[in-house]
Structure formats: C-alpha cells, structure tokens
C-alpha cells in the first residue's frame, strides 16, 4: 500500500502554545482514518495544515508526494468545521463554483446528493438551517472525485436524522482508491466507518492503529477506548 499522506515530525506552535507536537503519521490510500480527540487536541490544526490553510512550524507534510500547495489543493476535498461558502450564493452558484474550480467535480453526483439531502438548487445559502448547511457543504465536498477527503467534524451539531444521512452519504460516496481523514469527538456514531484511528491529545498522538485490531486487542470498542483514554 502506498502512503497518500506522509507526516513527519510535524510541529505547529502559536506563540507559547503548541498545537501539534512532533507528529508522525502516514495515511495509506484507500483508508478511512479517524482522528479522535477532545476539543483543543489539535485535530482541526492538523486538518488545516493538510488543506493548505495553515503552515507548520517544523516538520514536513507530503500529500501525494507534494507539499501543500496548488497541486495538493486540486486533489484534496476539504470540509472545514464552519460554513465557508460565500454568503451571496444560492446552492446553484455553489455548485457552479465547485464545477469551475475543481476538475474532479461530478455534477450528476452533486445532484444525486442534493436530492438525497432534500436540498434544491434554488435555495439561498444564508437562509439554510445549520443542519442543511452542513449537508450542503458535505454534498459539495463528496461530489468531487478527490484522492483525499478531509472532513472536519462532519456530524457535529446536527440532529440524528441529518447525522444518519451524512453518514450514509459518506459511506455511499467513499471510493476505494481515495482516502478519508475524518475528525470527530462523536466516536460512537462514527467508529464503524474507520479503518484506522488516531487518538490525539494536546498535540500528541497517544495511540494509533487499526480499528479492528484495537477492538480485538483491547477487548473494547473504539468509543470505550476513547473514554478510557480521555475520561
């Protein structure tokens, strides 16, 4: 298996605070990796570095062999933990926008996902509810046939029905030859979709491994293990 993402000695510090502490992590292509940790553990920082929105203080990040930049942005589909679409847009504008900038964007897939999420092209983005925005953002991100998907807290703050829809959309649109990196603190809802998990705390990796292997070895679920580590 080839590593689509290689992270070597990655450190990110803000003034006196360290957000990431000498991190080493490889992500194989075709894998769904869960980055688990409480708020402030450095999950979002890590994803922002992968997405090319944040620069590391030390160390190296390679995505498909390249440092974060124009190329990696073209193969990474990133779902931030906030509503990032321009406020003047309608859903249709957002679809056109993605189509214009990402050659891997599949408009038919986007339409299928919109239908599945019960959204319509004519809706104005700033009048959508939080759950609908989350679903729209995920629609755009998943409608790309990207090599790497980076999803930051995709099910945080949405109701259980939307949560199910989002999980289904992720599973349905997951492609065998692409990788997903997903952060969450809602481990129980998501643990079954991870191949590998990484427990992150205050910028350090406390534990990482194959999800099934950990279940077998520790005789507990990924969620129980999370509670043991962080509880």
């Amino acid at each position, binding site marked *: 298996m080839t590593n689509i993402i290689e992270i070597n000695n990655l450190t990110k510090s803000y003034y006196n605070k360290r957000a990431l502490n000498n991190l080493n992590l490889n992500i194989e292509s075709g894998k769904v990796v869960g980055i688990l940790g409480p708020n402030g553990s450095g999950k979002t920082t890590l994803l922002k570095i992968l997405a*090319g929105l*944040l620069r590391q203080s030390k160390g190296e990040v390679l995505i498909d062999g390249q440092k974060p930049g*124009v190329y990696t*942005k*073209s193969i990474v589909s990133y779902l*931030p933990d906030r509503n990032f*679409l*321009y406020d003047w847009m309608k859903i249709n504008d957002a679809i056109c926008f993605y189509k214009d*900038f990402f050659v891997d964007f599949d408009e038919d897939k986007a339409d299928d996902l919109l239908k599945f999420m019960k959204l319509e092209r004519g809706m104005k983005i700033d009048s959508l509810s939080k759950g609908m925005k989350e679903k729209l953002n995920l629609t755009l991100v998943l409608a790309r046939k990207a090599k790497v998907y980076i999803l930051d807290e995709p099910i945080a703050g949405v109701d259980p029905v939307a949560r199910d829809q989002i999980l289904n959309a992720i599973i349905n649109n997951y492609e065998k030859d692409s990788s997903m990196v997903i952060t969450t603190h809602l481990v129980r809802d998501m643990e079954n979709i991870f191949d590998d998990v990484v427990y992150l705390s205050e910028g350090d990796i406390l534990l990482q491994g194959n999800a099934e292997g950990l279940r077998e070895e520790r005789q507990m679920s990924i969620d129980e293990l999370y509670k043991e580590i962080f509880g």
Partner: protein
Amino acid sequence: MFKYMRYEIKGTHKFMGLLILFVLGASTGIQLFALNASKKYNDGLDGFGKIPNLLMPLLVLMIFGAFVTALFYIIGSFRKELYEDRGYLTFSLPLSGNQILGSKMVAALMWAVAIGLSVIVYNALLGSILFGFDWVEGVKYVFNIIPSSFTITIGLFIILSSVITLLLIYFAITLSKVSIKNKKIGGLWFIIFLILNSFVNYLILKVSGVFPYYLDLNTFKITGLNSLITKSFMSYVDMGFFVTGNGTTLVNIFSFIFSILIAVGTFLGTSYLIERKIDL
C-alpha cells in the same frame, strides 16, 4: 484565473451596482440643482459654454466620494477573506497567490473604471439635455486647455499610483495578518500602509533626484531638468516621477521604471504571503 475574477465580480456587483445607481442619482440631483441655481442667480458660465460654474466642483467631489466608498468596500472584502470563514473556501481552491491577487486587482480596477466612465458619460448625456452641452466641444476643450503630454502623464500617474496604493493596502493587510494573528488589532494594517506609502513616495522622489533623466513626451527626447528651467522662468511642479510646467511635461525615466518595479514587487510579495505564509 478568469473564473476567479468572474466570481470576484459576481460577489461585488450588487454593492457596486447600487453605488453606481446612487452616484447617477446624485448626479441628476446636482445637475438639476445647478440648473435651478443658474436660472435664479444668473450664475456665470464657464468654458464649456452653458455649464454653471457650480457644477464641476460638485461633480468632482461626488466622484471622489464614490471612489473612496468603493475603495473601502474593496478593502473590507479583502479583509473578510483573511479574517472570516469565506477564506476557508478561497484559500482551499487550487489557485496560486498570483491568480487570487491578480483577479482581485483586476476586478477592483475594473470597478473603478466602470464608476468613472458611467459617471462621466451619464453627466455628459444629462448635461447635453439640460444645458445643451456639446460633446465635441467638450472633448476639444479638455484637450485644448491641457497639453496632451500632460494628459498622458497625468493618466499614467493616476493609474500607476492607484495600482501601487491598492497593492500597498493589500500588502499591509496581508502582512498584519501574517505577523499578528490576533484580529483585535484591526487598525494595524492602516499604520503599516501609511508607513509603507510614505516610504515608497519618498523613494520615488529620491530616485528622481539621483537620476534626473526625463523623457519629453512631446518630442520623445531625453532631457535633463535644465531644459525645463531654462526654457522659461515659470516654476515647475515636481511630483516625483513627472515634472510639469510651462506647458511641457517631463517623465522621469528612472522613477517611472522604479514605480513599476515597486508595483511588481508589492504584487509578488503579497501573493507570496498569501500563498505561503497566511494562517487562517
């Protein structure tokens, strides 16, 4: 890059459209007001023939106001890109810093031209209806009172200095974001801009002093300042990269080139910071 420019324009067209509409409305008001005033007080008429004296200063003031408003809006939307959530979309697009900055520059300049042109054309049109303003006369008049080399130089000067000003503002905003991640120091960029701007102007002036080689746009000959001074006793105005006096305008070759270098350097510097240094 053109795609991104299109979305730049799409994102700002509502505000700019309203601004233009507002300015045209205000022009109408001003013209009607001037028409009234000229009837009431039998106000003197200036070189255009039948245009009241009052009109021009009011219009110029309004255009200036419109430009300042547009500038603030453009600055505001650039700051939003760096400080608000929309930056998460913009900076995760597979675009280089050059492409992003270039699109923003072109869109901003395009709006400036759109505002300027629409105001001029509309007022000329309205003026021809209200005052019988003669287009051909008007254009002739402009070129008669101002020697064409002067017009060209002023034009160049305005374009170049607006580009540099805008770039310095972008640079200052980006630099303040890169150096201090805290949003609270909101005015920092303005201080950086003021310092940079005076420094750049000082340099341009300095360069023209060190290399006093001028191009005469009438004759396309390279001369020194002496020619201007000896030719007449009239004082001349030194604007850094051009000198004007006695109907002749000379462009300082070195500070002109230097200004262009400053523009290019600021552009590249800003797009480097955008691409490599910004932490959202």
